[in-house]
């Protein structure tokens, strides 16, 4: 699993690639959190390269979303495959974290 952090139109973009399984979350959660939360910027998470997610990955996303909310910023997910989206929907995290189709839609969420 790879994680790349960049800036897109003034928001932070975190792009994951690979499987967000137990081992990957263990390896990346610290870096994801420290690279994103302290900055307190609106953040979009690119899931288009994620082939698998389970409850630990969901927990990681929620933890970072809560951290950003505490700093007055938000988190939006985009690009989930149908399989990843089923897990997002089944855990109902989509009730409190926006999930959209494309990067443009994700960025536009913060412009609205």
């Amino acid at each position, binding site marked *: 699993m790879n994680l790349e952090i960049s800036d897109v139109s003034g928001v932070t973009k975190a792009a994951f690639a690979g499987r967000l399984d*137990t081992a990957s979350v263990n390896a990346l959660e610290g870096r994801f959190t420290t690279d994103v939360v302290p900055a307190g910027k609106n953040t979009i998470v690119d899931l288009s390269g994620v082939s698998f997610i*389970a409850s*630990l990955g969901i927990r990681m996303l929620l933890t970072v979303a809560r951290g950003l909310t505490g700093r007055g910023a938000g988190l939006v997910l985009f690009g989930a495959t149908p399989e990843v989206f089923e897990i997002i929907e089944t855990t109902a995290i989509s009730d409190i974290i926006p999930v959209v189709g494309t990067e443009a839609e994700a960025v536009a969420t913060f412009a609205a």
Partner: protein
Amino acid sequence: MTDKPAGSFLLRLPSALESIEAGRCALMDYLAPATLSARMTNRLEVVFEELVSNIVRHGAATEIRVEAEMRDGEVHLAVEDDGPAFDPFDRPAPLRYTDITTATPGGRGIELVRKLTRHADYARRDGRNCVSVGIAAA
């Protein structure tokens, strides 16, 4: 044409982080002849991940035993461990998220298992925790 995997699947693994991926790969190799849909494969992998990861991270077990078989249109998966008695289903379902500021991270793994399977059961047998689930194969 979809073929059934030959025989049943039995794997013993140490209760260790690396066993999750090793077990998943072995299980998927066994199920390959069944050419399951991407959706069903993912459900199976998520359920497997949740059950085995729970044991590795919380169970104080030394050994995990995984059995699988395709029958009656289902993948039957059984995961056993030699840890202290623990029924992962003996807890109420978590409350639905209502607000990001009050949402409690974690505790959703067993909810996923319940929702992605046709049935999920626990038993304590011969000093082992035994979880068995059925996942629709189509």
